[in-house]
């Protein structure tokens, strides 16, 4: 298994955001991390990215704590922000400095594929900024991609472009974890769906298993989380 979380708990004051979560994700899977608002999806992704530390339990990426394996993790935060003055050239330079596995030529290809204009972030719309940061994240050659709501707040056409970019970027030696509310649109790319409720995993099933049960991911979402 590439990623292992065992009995992970994370609290914020009196609120338990993630409660004894155990999860194992193999290489080569696209995993949908699904749940209603406040289910603990973003906290789980930050724990996997090493941006938060668990109060209890362990998170391991290839046997190492995420903070020590930072070079293998590409994380796109939900409120993805970057310096407003940054343009494409500056972003390529900055991401190249921050991440040794950043591929500038792939970044430019992804920008073209996602139809992102070549101007500064300050002059971009919300959807264009989201695609710009997604392109920068996917342009890394990481082992684990953590994408927090990459489809949130963007129009249908943009969603299709983002999903197409994700499919084109798939590699069998990497794992992709997406949290999203747009279950119906994204379910076609999921190999596995992990349903979370109140900080716990209530169901983890492969798309194939769901199909055998005669359910789509969206139907399972309604059944499990309603």
């Amino acid at each position, binding site marked *: 298994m590439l990623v292992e979380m065992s009995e992970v708990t994370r609290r914020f004051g009196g609120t338990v955001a993630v409660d004894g979560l155990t999860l194992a994700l193999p290489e080569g899977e696209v995993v949908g991390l699904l749940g209603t608002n406040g289910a603990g999806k973003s906290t789980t992704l930050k724990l996997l990215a090493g941006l938060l530390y668990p109060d209890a339990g362990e998170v391991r990426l290839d046997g190492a704590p995420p903070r020590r394996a930072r070079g293998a993790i590409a994380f796109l935060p939900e409120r993805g922000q970057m310096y407003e003055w940054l343009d494409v050239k*500056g972003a390529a330079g900055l991401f190249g400095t*921050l*991440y040794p596995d950043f591929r500038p030529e792939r970044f430019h290809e992804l920008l073209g594929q996602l139809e992102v204009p070549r101007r500064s972030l300050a002059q971009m719309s919300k959807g264009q900024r989201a695609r710009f940061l997604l392109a920068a994240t996917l342009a890394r050659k990481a082992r684990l991609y953590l994408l927090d709501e990459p489809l949130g707040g963007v129009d249908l056409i943009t969603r299709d472009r983002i999903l197409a970019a994700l499919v084109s970027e798939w590699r069998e030696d990497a794992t992709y974890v997406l949290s999203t509310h747009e279950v119906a649109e994204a379910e076609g790319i999921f190999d596995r769906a992990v349903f979370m409720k109140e900080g716990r995993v209530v169901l983890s099933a492969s798309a194939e298993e769901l199909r055998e049960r005669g359910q789509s991911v969206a139907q399972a979402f309604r059944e499990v989380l309603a």
Partner: protein
Amino acid sequence: MNLFTLELRKHRLLIGGLVLLVLVWAAWLTRGVVNGDPLITLGLALGTLLAIAPLGVLVPIVLARALFGEAGGPLAFLFTSPRSGLTHVGARMGLGLLVLGVYYAALTGVVHWVAAAAGVRYDAWLPPALWAYGLLAWVAPLLALGLVYGLVVSAYRPGRGGQIVAVAASAGAVALWQWMGRFALDHLSFLPRLPIPHVVLPEEVSRLLGLSNVGLDLKTALEPLMSSVPTAPLWVGLLVTLALLAVAVRLWEEAEWA
């Protein structure tokens, strides 16, 4: 774009402000020298330097705070970078020291020029020594302290309770600073010392003070009081800076992004 140029780009307004401040001040003093009042201008230069002395404390803190003041988003990309905390903190500290080094060098250079025009003579090593002394004993620890505070505020976003602790810690830091200064002077006298420099004032000043018709040498006046200048504060400043930078690097490595 490397981390150093990133910081430079982020803080161009602040740096530009400092440049403007020095330019306006230098132009004002140049007018005084050109108009034939170099001695009065020197008095004004030293007076204004004293008046803006609190700025000497404030500027490193403001700059350091700005260097670590991040909006929520970019920090996530910086924290997830496999580059070491030392690289990130080093880039910020390096830029801060460069900016403030040039700033204080410009202040020292302008005063040196006005003093030369006013006929004040002194040892050639005095201006660079003053600059280095100020930078190492005063500016570098303040900058490092500001970096630690800035990182704590940016990464941990302390609540009201944490802010009260920070204010108390600031007051404690001032007391600690005084204690360290006294400790350095009382117990570290074995460290190398600098000679008292020759600073010869123009004859007009001596006549004005009713002392003599020859230039007054401050070295002669000061020698009965002290035989040399201790460098202990400089070494203590250096140690404190390194300790604070080690704290900042550790904080960077451990910081959370909620």
